[in-house]
């Protein structure tokens, strides 16, 4: 179970203080899929980052699988993230100096898990076994996102956080990625929290939260 309780987050910028989140409380059962929808600047990414421990909320708490993650030390949080979470970003964000194999095996090495077999298996599942030795700059946008997804679930995390993963893909490629994500996460029993504008993704989610100006306005 993942649960946020009244989390708020503000930023200082050139335009003054921006309230990105205000008292947001949401719940996602383990293994479920959740879509966060809303206009650009509504707070989807910030909420995703707070749930994933990538940034600390100003107020409130985030409880993931019984652990209040923002009470953890930096080191404890890192260990928690590497064991339990996987991230897919809007632009893939592969490590540019590492090959596809090295990228996917990175979380496996961090978790002392077997890598050769697992990487081969994942590449087979996402239909890209031939790119194992490729560098990220040699991949197309769709391939990059699929590799980023494979890397995110390589270590069988309990939760996958995806920030607009199909935003920069054409419809066909986006649908392919969505198919892999939902199919494989279901197989692995991994919860998905996804921020998106993509209607096809929203339809597939077990639960949807709509955000506006940092507040949940609908479920």
């Amino acid at each position, binding site marked *: 179970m993942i649960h946020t309780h009244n989390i708020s987050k503000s930023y200082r910028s050139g335009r003054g203080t921006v309230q990105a989140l205000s008292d947001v409380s949401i719940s996602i059962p383990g293994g479920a899929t959740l879509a966060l929808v809303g206009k650009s600047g509504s707070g989807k990414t*910030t909420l995703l*980052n707070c749930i*994933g421990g*990538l*940034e*600390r909320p100003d107020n409130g708490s985030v409880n993931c699988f019984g652990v209040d993650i923002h009470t953890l030390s*930096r*080191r404890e949080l*890192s*260990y*928690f*993230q*590497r*064991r339990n*979470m996987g*991230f897919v*970003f809007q632009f893939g*964000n*592969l*490590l*540019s*100096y*590492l090959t596809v194999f*090295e990228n996917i095996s*990175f*979380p496996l*090495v*961090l978790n002392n898990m077997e890598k050769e077999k697992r990487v081969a298996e994942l590449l087979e599942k996402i239909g890209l076994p031939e790119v194992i030795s490729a*560098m990220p700059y040699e991949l197309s946008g769709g391939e990059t996102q699929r590799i980023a997804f494979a*890397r995110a679930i390589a270590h069988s995390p309990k939760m996958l956080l995806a920030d607009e993963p199909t935003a920069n893909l054409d419809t066909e490629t986006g649908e392919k990625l969505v198919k892999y994500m939902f199919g494989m996460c279901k197989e692995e029993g991994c919860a998905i929290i996804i921020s998106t504008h993509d209607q096809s993704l929203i339809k597939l989610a077990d639960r949807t939260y709509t955000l506006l100006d940092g507040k949940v306005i609908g479920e």
Partner: protein
Amino acid sequence: MYFWIKTASLFLVRSRSSTIVLTLMVLSAVSTLIFLSSLAIGINDAMIRNSVGLFSGHISGFNIPDDITKKQLFTEGVSGVLKRIPTSGFLHYRDQLEMTTLIAVAPAEEKKFTAIWKKAFKGRYLEPGKKEIFLSQPIAERLNIEPGDNIGFRSGTDSASVELTVAGIYKTGIDQFDRGVSFCIMSAIPVKSSPWNAAIFLDNGVDKEWIVGKYRNAKLNNISFKTWSDLMPDLQQLIDLNYISMSIVIVLVFIVVSSGIAGAFSIFILKNIREYGIMKAMGITPMETASLIFSEVILINLVASTLGIIIGAAAVFIFENIGINLSAYTSHNQYFIVSGIIFPRLTVFSLCLPPASALLFSIPAAIWPTALVIKRSAADILRSI
């Protein structure tokens, strides 16, 4: 740790151009400083070599009793011992008299170890078996005498005068020499054989104090041995001053160069901040982040310093053999009286200090960007790129 070192080396190898630029910076700094410090040591060596090589040797022995032979002064590290017998007296030519210390020498050996014979500006140096005298320029001028003229020498008021032919006239530019020292061969004058003086020449790199200590242990206590630094305290001071000033220059140069290197390292690390942000999102700990960054810095330093040492040492090796001729700038300097050629010399200090300093400066340089990467949240880093 192996994983972080491997990842760091992959980062370095694959971010080729920035790694090459950074390596070249460190490499050129290290090799230049190795050469500079070797050159400083070479300048000091040249001053010592010139000063001891003109006449006095590394160690001078005075008033040595006749029962002590040259052979007794030969020991490990000694390359030559020259026997000299000084006699005070006066030279007379026509109606003029001139005080002098006439030093009886063995010309062949003197030519082998000293450079006084090269200072003949008229005529030539002494030849074995000839009753000749080698005069300094001021004496020759005062007596108005030229090579080939005959001159008389008398060691005391009641001793007989010895006639000698002027072989040549020398000029060293060193007052104590030029003012009143003349040379002849051992058999030219009826000099008493005791006591005698010794000029002791050492092999390269042999410590003069160690040899003096050996003489003392060999029960040669009653002989007065003086090293070149005892006889030429001004040269010792000059060498000390040279060490200090070169050290200051090298430190200043290194601070300037290292600031550049430190800045380049900071840029190099921050250039990859996106990568660290992604890794943070995957759960790498602050310690692992630091391990990765410091592995990069240390690896690049090791490679660049090794190449810098090889290039710097190779440059020193080349010039150690051919020398750097600075005669045009040293001709009026008494410490370069024999030769103005500098032979740079490597020492452990000149070889180790530059790479150690490169590491010493680049590691603190990596602290700030590392702290920045650790402190900033992954979201913040990824948002900013």
